[in-house]
């Protein structure tokens, strides 16, 4: 009798614990602190939890920039990475030794819907897809305040000379022409990195030759021009007075509220306007970094970050199911609704009709053949860590454009050697 009672208790306890193990899965996920990342993740995780009430998420947020790189690398190397993590695609992804550290996602049913342009930047050297797009593609270019443009009767510039002329008129009207924010150092690189479409339209083989150590920034006039542009706008005195200390948030504020007319950035800044200055969302327009020739001008594109699955993930199968949902058309459209700041890279995934002004300024570049191309970091693994400091030096007048380009050429050597590229 007693035996049986114990037996029943034990059996029911077993049953309970077994069903508990089946029922509740907590997926660990690490994303960065960017408002767009958080909004995208909230959109997909909420929908997924509604469909699968047994799945919950344990979200950990990390810093962006080089501090974030460090966190991701250290966690992967020590095996402390949550199941799923968000990280850049392109050259930064390649530096993670993806063959060893990141799970293969090529058998994911929804992987077939990922656009080929994106598959390329999340495939390891074995050719297997290891990431799914998280967020929209971004453009690198210049935000402008449409109220100031209307007030002064200006048109978005088609060439660099037009851009300088606009800046001069804005400055003459007593306004800050160009916001610069060296307090957030990465923002200093936009004139160099987002000029790459213009570089490539003049030197079509630049990326391949650059990887093979055959061309250099300092000795290729088209590539050097990015550095020269920074020097030119700095010397012309277009900047806000506190450019050395201002931050990315300050820059977005200035261009949204009309404190400054221009702010070079990546289009993920639109999320910042939506969050902090929703009333000014329609006041901010966007154009690509202008080049010498209006006919050859186009937009330099940044591929979105990806969600990856750690090779040592605790809940490998459950995490794969979640990623499959994120990469599906349904998951993608949820993100597109939450963060409509650029085109998405899943087949058939449409943006909502009413997008912010800066996005509708950007979309024509994507929709017209030959007016948009990826940034150098998606075509070549060679990227130096010190470009942001070097660009700050040019903008602050410490170093000339020519010297800066030569210094950057030297800086990239370390990366090339570490990756074991031939010819370096």
């Amino acid at each position, binding site marked *: 009798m007693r035996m049986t009672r114990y037996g029943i208790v034990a059996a029911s306890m077993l049953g309970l614990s077994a069903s508990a193990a089946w029922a509740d899965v907590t997926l660990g996920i690490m994303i960065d602190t960017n408002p767009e990342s958080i909004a995208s993740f909230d959109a997909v995780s909420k929908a997924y939890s509604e469909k699968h009430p047994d799945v919950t998420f344990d979200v950990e947020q990390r810093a962006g920039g080089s501090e974030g790189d460090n966190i991701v690398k250290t966690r992967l190397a020590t095996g402390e990475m949550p199941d799923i993590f968000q990280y850049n695609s392109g050259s930064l992804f390649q530096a993670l030794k993806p063959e060893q550290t990141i799970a293969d996602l090529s058998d994911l049913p929804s992987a077939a819907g990922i656009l080929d342009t994106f598959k390329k930047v999340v495939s390891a050297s074995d050719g297997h897809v290891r990431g799914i797009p998280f967020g929209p593609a971004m453009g690198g270019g210049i935000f402008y305040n449409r109220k100031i443009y209307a007030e002064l009767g200006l048109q978005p510039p088609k060439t660099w000379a037009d851009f300088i002329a606009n800046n001069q008129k804005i400055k003459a009207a007593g306004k800050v022409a160009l916001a610069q924010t060296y307090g957030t*150092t990465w923002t200093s690189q936009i004139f160099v990195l987002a000029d790459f479409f213009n570089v490539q339209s003049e030197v079509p083989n630049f990326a391949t030759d650059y990887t093979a150590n055959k061309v250099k920034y300092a000795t290729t006039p088209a590539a050097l021009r990015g550095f020269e542009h920074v020097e030119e706008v700095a010397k012309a005195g277009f900047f806000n007075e*506190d450019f*050395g200390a201002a931050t990315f948030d300050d820059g977005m504020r200035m261009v949204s509220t009309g404190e400054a007319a221009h702010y070079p950035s990546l289009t993920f800044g639109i999320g910042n306007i939506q969050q902090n200055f929703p009333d000014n969302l329609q006041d901010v327009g966007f154009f690509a970094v202008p080049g010498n020739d209006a006919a050859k001008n186009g937009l330099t594109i940044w591929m979105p970050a990806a969600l990856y699955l750690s090779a040592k993930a605790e809940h490998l199968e459950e995490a794969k199911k979640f990623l499959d949902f994120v990469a599906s058309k349904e998951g993608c459209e949820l993100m597109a609704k939450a963060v409509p700041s650029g085109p998405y890279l899943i087949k058939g995934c449409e943006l909502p009709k009413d997008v912010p002004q800066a996005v509708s300024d950007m979309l024509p570049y994507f929709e017209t053949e030959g007016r948009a191309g990826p940034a150098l970091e998606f075509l070549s693994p060679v990227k130096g860590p010190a470009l942001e400091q070097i660009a700050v030096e040019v903008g602050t007048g410490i170093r000339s454009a020519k010297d800066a380009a030569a210094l950057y050429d030297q800086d990239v050597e370390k990366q090339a050697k570490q990756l074991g590229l031939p010819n370096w």
Partner: protein
Amino acid sequence: MVARKSPYPYWFVLPAAVVFTTLFLAPTIASFWFSLTRWDLFTTQFIGLENYKQFFREPFLIKGLINTVIYAVTTSAAKTVLGLLLAVLLTSGIWAQGALRTIIFFPVLVSTIGVGITFSVLMHPTRGLINVALATLGIHGPGWLTDPALALYSIVVVDVWKGVGLATVIYIAGLASISPDYYEAARIDGATRRQMFFRVTVPLSKPATVTVVTLSLIGGLRSFDLIWAMTKGGPGFSSDVLASVIYKQYQAGFYGLSTAGNVILFLLIGLIVLPLTAWFNRKEIDL
């Protein structure tokens, strides 16, 4: 030479030896090894002295080395001089002496990162309290942290403000150990206060000076957190020191290279501090 027999059996030191070996000795030896490899956390490849060559080729390194020495010498000198003067003031029996001693020591207890962030807000070129206050006096304040010629020295000032309390406390202890007989004798001989300071106080507080100089010099040479919180070595590379150059290599994923940088920093501190301590100690015996 016969080794003196330790009064303790060997097993007695075992726990300490285990801790020392696993936490200090092994990592130190490992870091010498890793500094000779190209290391991306996942794989290592032995490349001999290549990292050291690369580190010395870093264009920012020379700037960082010079800045490190400037930073260490200026902060150390300022802390020593100000520390002694403040200690004299705070042992002279002035009003509320105890409270004032507490106040001068207070910044030492505050988190360096907190101090750095606070001062970078105060030193903001347009909105910072310092320049706003100067503007009301009609002075156009400089970009304390954004002017490349000024940034390093602005951090030096904050470092001295934060660290002078420790120097003062060491000097207060040093002054307390000087026998009042010396001052009495000097007074009878008709020495002025100035003479008493230079002829009695300064030489007799030498042990305190040795401690203050050594501590603040080592602190200055390896200084990192305050600089990182205030400028991250910027603008550009103008306030980079050896430690921030090393950290940036680490952030960029050049783990072997940054380990080589740490070995160099270790050797540099040794090269500067060992002869200095030897010199100080010799002088002490002479005294």
